[in-house]
């Protein structure tokens, strides 16, 4: 399935802002919400039920004049899974009382979201491609 490649990048921009707030306010609740968003993106697809995908589809895309490139949904969906795993690790840090684990996991996710939003470099997508090329996934 093909989706508008600008959608995941828009989602990454929102994710970046959310993660900045998570770190600044030390907010486990915000990270839990973001992790839920990642879970929806990872298991239902970033275009489908994901809140960020919904915002892009209903509010942003209709206002864009140009037609965006299409991309296969699998790499950005995998990237959501990677984000979800970082979120889970961060939340485990909260549960075990380790702010270092919480902050480091969030920081890694922030770096990935920042690279996607600002430089259009999707780290999770690149990981997916490497795994496909290594024939570990299809």
């Amino acid at each position: 399935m093909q989706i508008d490649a600008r959608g995941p990048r828009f989602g990454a921009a929102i994710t970046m802002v959310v993660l900045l707030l998570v770190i600044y306010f030390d907010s486990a609740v915000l990270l839990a919400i973001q992790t839920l968003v990642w879970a929806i993106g990872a298991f239902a697809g970033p275009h489908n039920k994901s809140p960020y995908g919904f915002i892009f589809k209903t509010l942003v895309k209709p206002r864009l004049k140009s037609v965006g490139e299409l991309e296969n949904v699998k790499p950005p969906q995998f990237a959501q899974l990677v984000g979800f795993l970082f979120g889970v690790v961060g939340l485990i840090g909260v549960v075990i009382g380790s702010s270092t684990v919480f902050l480091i996991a969030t920081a890694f996710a922030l770096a990935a979201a920042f690279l996607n939003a600002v430089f259009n470099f999707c780290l999770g997508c690149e990981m997916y491609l490497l795994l496909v090329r290594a024939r570990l996934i299809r």
Partner: protein
Amino acid sequence: MNHWLLIASVLVLSSAFGLFLQFTRGKLTKKYSNEIFFDQLKIGQELGKKATILQFETEYCSICPGVKRQINELIKNDKGISFYEIDAVERIELAKKLHVKSSPTVLFFNEAGLEEGRIIGAPKKDQLRNTLEKITTIKMEKTNAN
């Protein structure tokens, strides 16, 4: 831990990496080896009379169709330049042999079939035209491709 320091560190390091990618991708790099000739690839396609362009891509590559459009637009009036696409996943052994590690990677072969260079990622403005001009030593017609 100082949260501002953590945020600043993440943003600075990510920016450095992102800028590195911006400066290195999409530019013509030197050929990987003197040994790579088009005929040896055995892809079942003819060598172009002036030049041959080979784009390695994957079905998951979002920028590949755009690069393909750029190339087709640029060479549409020049029958001497051949352009072929290869799926890097389906032809993984060939991709490995040619040291193709990401998509798109566009290889340029001269009229003798020798690789002259490659562009990894989306080409910069005029990069494709300049490369083809260099290889074919003809002036490409200005187009809106870039």
